[in-house]
């Protein structure tokens, strides 16, 4: 194995041993994945998004396979933040996992409530505010589709959260300008940006002649969306370089399957990379991708991950 410094910044005070994370909703709360990959070997594990209360999620069918991708409409099934803190987090901490807890709510206050509950919890290295869900108070418009909703929510989470826990905002690509949303989030105090969440898509079942998913539409993920994800990371990083978005680390995701894919995101500006759909195909991907990324960096004469971040913007 090469001798690359793989440490990755999560926030200004938190540095991770490596940049590889899981994407929210694609590794549950870690127990099942731990059978394939020791959680402590990951930079972080991002939990499935947790709301303050129990949620059943949507009825089935919840998924459809699409060309080089899939649609899901899980609908944030979960047992709520208290249950997580009491029953899942201690186990995660015991495994030595560094946990990025994904939280959400249907109102700004619900986000704040979930964030507050995580204060001082061992194992929690940060919070990811999944603002790519509908804001009940604003006509059901997704928080991250509206700069001021995004601002308010991130602000509320940052205020409520443990100051030692960096707060990431998770952005949806389904907007006219993701740079505007990124700017709002960083202004609101986000310590990092997670990009991207799924694209809104749907499949019509040619047999039943109806939408395939019980939820009609679902989120498109997987390699199919990688070019969109890389573009989003690149655009936002470019805006950071240009000074129109405050510079914070970017956790890149969307269709990563290999170290080469991960490198694309790093070169575009990501400080960390998260693996989602690939885990369904290959649950041991995190270890493989980390090794491949390390070799890819070495082959290209980088001596640290840090050097490669955003390199596509600067040239040789």
């Amino acid at each position, binding site marked *: 194995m090469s001798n690359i410094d793989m440490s990755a910044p999560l926030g200004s005070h938190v540095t991770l041993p490596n940049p590889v994370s899981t994407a929210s909703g*694609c590794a*549950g709360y870690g127990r099942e994945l731990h059978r394939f990959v020791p959680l402590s070997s990951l930079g972080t594990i991002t939990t499935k998004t947790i709301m303050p209360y129990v*949620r059943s999620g949507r009825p089935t*069918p919840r998924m459809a396979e699409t060309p080089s991708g899939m649609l*899901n409409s899980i609908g944030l099934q979960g047992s709520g933040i208290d249950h997580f803190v009491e029953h899942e987090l201690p*186990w995660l901490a015991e495994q030595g996992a560094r946990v990025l807890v994904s939280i959400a709510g249907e109102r700004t206050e619900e986000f704040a409530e979930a964030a507050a509950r995580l204060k001082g919890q061992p194992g929690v290295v940060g919070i990811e505010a999944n603002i790519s869900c509908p804001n009940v108070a604003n006509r059901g418009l997704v928080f991250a589709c509206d700069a001021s909703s995004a601002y308010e929510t991130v602000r509320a989470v940052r205020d409520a959260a443990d100051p030692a826990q960096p707060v990431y905002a998770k952005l949806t690509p389904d907007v006219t300008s993701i740079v505007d949303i990124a700017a709002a989030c960083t202004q609101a105090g986000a310590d990092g940006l997670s990009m991207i969440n799924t694209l809104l898509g749907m499949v019509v079942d040619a047999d039943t002649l109806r939408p395939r998913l019980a939820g009609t539409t679902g989120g498109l993920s997987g390699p199919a969306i990688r070019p969109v994800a890389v573009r989003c990371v690149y655009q936002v990083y470019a805006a950071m370089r240009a000074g129109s978005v405050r510079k914070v680390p970017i956790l890149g995701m969307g269709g990563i399957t290999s170290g080469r894919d991960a490198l694309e995101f790093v070169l575009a500006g990501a400080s960390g990379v998260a693996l989602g*759909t690939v885990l369904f*195909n290959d*649950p041991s991907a995190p270890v493989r991708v980390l090794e491949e990324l390390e070799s890819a960096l070495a082959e290209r004469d980088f001596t640290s991950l840090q050097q490669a971040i955003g390199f596509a913007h600067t040239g040789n």
Partner: protein
Amino acid sequence: MDREIQRSESPLSRQSRPTPTQSSAEILALEPVGAYHRLVLDTGSDVAARVSPGHFAALAIGGRDSSMLLRRAFSIHRADPGAGSIELVFAVHGRGTKALAAHHVGDSVDLIAPLGTPFPLSGGPVAAVLVAGGYGSAPMFGLAEQILDRGGRVGFVLGAASADKLFGVGLARALTPHVAVTTDDGSYGSKGRVTDPLPGMIRELGATEVHSCGPMPMLRAVTEIATAYGARSHTAVEEAMACGIGICMTCVLPVVGEDGVTRFERSCTAGPVFDGTKVRWEDAGTLPAGLEGADAMNPHRVPAR
């Protein structure tokens, strides 16, 4: 969700859930059997030794250049710990199974096994009826052997749409004289459904357990009959799965917990074998009344707190 994790230790699933192994498995045999294909895989590990009847395997098909990302689940028909191999029986259904059928001996597929919660096995001798539709019989012969090994008795009710879609009638007859066969079109056995001979078979054997595997409506009907005749009903469900290992949450069914509360349980971890009386069959694909957390799906509800 540790609820599902706990479930695997619940009385319903008395067998422990072994750790699944991921490996690149070489195809040792691939050939047609009736309307199906028989696939033997070299697991290259002790996977076969850890298989119990009702466990399934999840295969990734097509490699890196394939446009198909998700795993395909198949019951493990037979496990040969000596050879380190497992055997599956599959029907060509969509793209993935079509591509799988086009593989050659010597090719490799990415395999994860054993997965899921298998059929519960009592320690002592019991009388059980095993009911299966189509390739649903695949896991049943191993189960029958284990029941027989424990001194029990078994009967089979095997059904399918037509004769070519029956699997394992001969295997069943080799294990027990109590074998009933039905086809929808009457092309083999008696014309009708598995539920027709089932009551007679339960009585004949004095069965206290019914194990079934097949389409949901069948499992539901079998459970109703088993319950009416005082037998427990263990059903192996087939719900669409993306990962097979418990991380995607696509495969849920509404299942009543021991506390009487209905929750969406993953059929790949809490199942595929469920107590048939706990599954709310008629409510699959809905948000049924009493489902825990279903109120939170209504955006116009009063905030939780």
